[in-house]
C-alpha cells in the first residue's frame, strides 16, 4: 500500500511538471492552431539563458530569471513576426515545419554558445527529504509542484478574467468574429507566442532544477510531454493539467507494476498507447474543442 501511495504521489508531482511544460503547446495551439515543435528547445534555451545571466553576469538568481522572462517575452514577439506571420493562412503542416526548422536553429545556437555538456543550476533549496505519511518528498519537488500550480492557476484566471485573455479565447474561437469586434488578431498571435515562451522559461527552470541542463536532454522534454498535451485536448488549459497528471500517474504506475513483469522499460511507451486509445474514443482529447465540420 505504501508502495502504491508513493507511486501515486510521485506520479502527480511529475505530472504537474508535465502539465507546466505542456501548457506552452496549448497556448500556441489555442491562438493559432499550430503545434510548436520547438517548444522543447525554447525550454532548454530558457534555462541556459537564465543560468548564463546568473553565472556570467553575476546577477542574483531571481533577477536572472526576471531578465530571462522579459527577454523571452520579446523573443516570442520577434519569432512570431519573422517566422510565423508570413505563413498565416498557409497550410498548417508548413507552419509546423517552420517550428521544426526553428528547433534546429535553436539547437545550433545552444551548441555554438554553450557547447555540449551538462550544467546545473545553483542549489537554492535544501535537498533533505520530507516525510509525509510514509511518502518521501523533496523540497525541490514541492517547489516544482508549487511553481507548476501557480503558473497553471495564473493562466486559468488570465483566460477567464482578463480582457486580453478573453480576447485570446475569442481569436481562438473565431478569427473573423474577433476581428469584427476590434480584436487585433496579429497582436494576439504575437502575444500567444510571447506568453508561450515565458511558460517555456518557467518549465525550463523547473525541469532544469530537477534534472540537469543539457541541450539534448532538455530539448527532448518537448516530445516527452506530447501525450500530456494531446490527451487533455490541444486547446484546453484544464486539459493540459489533467493530461499531465494522468500521464505522470500512468508512467509511474506502469514503471512500478508493469515494467518489472515485462523486464523492459515498457513504461516509456504506455503513455502513447493510452494516448491512442483515448483518441479513438474522444478524437479531440478529453477536453479539446470538437471541431464542427461543414461540407
Amino acid at each position: 500500500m505504501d508502495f502504491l501511495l508513493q507511486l501515486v504521489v510521485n506520479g502527480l508531482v511529475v505530472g504537474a511538471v508535465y502539465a507546466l511544460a505542456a501548457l506552452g503547446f496549448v497556448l500556441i495551439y489555442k491562438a493559432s492552431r499550430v503545434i510548436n515543435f520547438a517548444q522543447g528547445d525554447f525550454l532548454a534555451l530558457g534555462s541556459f539563458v537564465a543560468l548564463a545571466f546568473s553565472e556570467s553576469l553575476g546577477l542574483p538568481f531571481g533577477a536572472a530569471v526576471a531578465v530571462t522572462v522579459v527577454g523571452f517575452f520579446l523573443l516570442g514577439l520577434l519569432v512570431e513576426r519573422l517566422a510565423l506571420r508570413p505563413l498565416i493562412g498557409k497550410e498548417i503542416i508548413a507552419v509546423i515545419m517552420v517550428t521544426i526548422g526553428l528547433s534546429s536553429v535553436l539547437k545550433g545556437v545552444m551548441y555554438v554558445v554553450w557547447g555540449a555538456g551538462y550544467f546545473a543550476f545553483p542549489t537554492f533549496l535544501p535537498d533533505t527529504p520530507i516525510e509525509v505519511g510514509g511518502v518521501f518528498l523533496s523540497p525541490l519537488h514541492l517547489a516544482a509542484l508549487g511553481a507548476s500550480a501557480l503558473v497553471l492557476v495564473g493562466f486559468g484566471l488570465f483566460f477567464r478574467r482578463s480582457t486580453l485573455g478573453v480576447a485570446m479565447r475569442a481569436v481562438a474561437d473565431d478569427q473573423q468574429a474577433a476581428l469584427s469586434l476590434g480584436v487585433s488578431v496579429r497582436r494576439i498571435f504575437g502575444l500567444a507566442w510571447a506568453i508561450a515562451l515565458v511558460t517555456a522559461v518557467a518549465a525550463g527552470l523547473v525541469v532544469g532544477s530537477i534534472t540537469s541542463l543539457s541541450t539534448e536532454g532538455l530539448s527532448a522534454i518537448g516530445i516527452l510531454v506530447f501525450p500530456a498535451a494531446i490527451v487533455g485536448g490541444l486547446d484546453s488549459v484544464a486539459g493540459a493539467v489533467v493530461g499531465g497528471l494522468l500521464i505522470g500517474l500512468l508512467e509511474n504506475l506502469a514503471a512500478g507494476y508493469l515494467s518489472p513483469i515485462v523486464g523492459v522499460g515498457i513504461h516509456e511507451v504506455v503513455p502513447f498507447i493510452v494516448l491512442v486509445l483515448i483518441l479513438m474514443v474522444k478524437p479531440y482529447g478529453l477536453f479539446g474543442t470538437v471541431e464542427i465540420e461543414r461540407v
Partner: protein
Amino acid sequence: MLRARTLGASLLVLVVSALAALVPAVAIGAEARTVTFGLIGTWTGPTSDAGRHYADGALHYFRWLQDEQKGTVETQKLGPVRVELVWSDDQYNPQQTLSALRQFASQNRIAGAITWGTGANLAIKEEVNRAHIPTLSASFHAGLLDAPGAYNFFLSMTYDDHMKVLVDYVKSLHKGASTPKVGFNVHPSPYGRSPLAAGRAYLQELGMKAVASQELAADVLDATSQVLELRRAGAEYVLFQNVASPLSVFLRDARRNGLRATFLGIHYAGGEELLHLAGANADGFITTSAARTWYEEIPGNRTVHQLNARYSPDEKARPPHYAQGVATAMLLVEGLRRAPTLDGAGIKAGLETLRNFDTGGLVLPVTFTPDRHAGADAVLLYRLNARTKRLDYIGEFAPRGKAAGAAQGR
C-alpha cells in the same frame, strides 16, 4: 515576387556550392608516402557531453603530430610516412557516420578510423570490413567483435567483461553469509542492454541473485518508481549501464527514498560528469574505467595536459574520455609504425602486432592479435569522492570466474 526569386536563386547557389564542396581534390594519394586517417566523432548531438572530449583528444593528438613532427611518423618498415587527418561530426546520427565513412573511404582513401558510439559503429560495421578500414571505436559493444578477423578494434574489454568485473567486485564487497541481492539498471538501447545477458549469466554462475532488471531512459525527470521497486526487492547492489544524466536523477531519488544500496556502473556511467551533476548523491559510486583520470601521476598525463593547454586553453580539466581519445590516436599511429604495407590491411596487421603496448599509462597496456581485438584483459575501478570532487583509484581488475576466460578469447 522579386524577394522570393532572389531567395530562390540564393538557395540554388547554396545547394550548388554545397554540392561543389562534395567534390574536393581526390589527388591526395599522389605522394606515395602519405596516409590518411579519419576521425568521425560526436561533438554535438546525444552523448556529445562525453563524446566531444574523446573526439577532441584524438584530434589534438593528430594536430600535435602535425605541429611537432610535421605530421611525419618514422615507421619500422616503410620509412617516414606523412599522416593526414580528416574529421567529421556525426551528430550521433548513424546515417551521418556511414556517409562520412563512405566519403572518407572513397575520396581520401583513409587507412584507419576512430569512431564513437554503439549505434554508429554497428551501422558502419559492414562498410568498415568491405573497405578494409581498421576502426578503433569508443564503444565496447561485444557485437562489434562477433566476427573474428574483422576490422573493428577497441582498447578495453567488452562491456560484458566490464559487467563481470563489477559482479566480482560486488562479491568481494559483500559481507556476511547471505546471498548478495543485485539489481540491474540499463539504458533502453543496444548500448545499455548489451552487457545485461552476460551480467545475469555471470551472476548466476557465482551464486548471486538478480532481484530486478530495469531500464531508465536518458531524458527522464524522475526515477522514483525504479528506486521504489529496488527498495521493495531489497536490492543491496545496483549495477548500471547508463549515462550520467539519468543516473544523477536516479541517485537523487535513491537518496530521497532511502534506498541504501551500493551503486556501481560501467565506463560511461559515471565519472566526473556524474560528480558534477549529482554532487553529494554520487559519493561512493563505483565505476569501471578504461582510461586514467586527469589528476593522477602518470607519464601520459603530462602529454595530455600539454595537448589540452595548447589546443583548448579554455578547458581547465578534462574527464578520462579525453585521455581515452589521445590513447586511441596513439594506438592508430603505432599501428601505422608497425604496418607492413601502407593501406588498411597493413595497418590492421600492424595493430595486431601490439603486445602490451604502453600509452604512458593513459589506458591499460594494449594487446591486439589477429583474433583478439579487445585491447585489454582488465579494467580500472574508481570510487567517486564528492568531498574532493575527484575519482579515487581502487585498482586494476580482471574478470575472475569461469566465463571470463572464454570472453577474453574474442
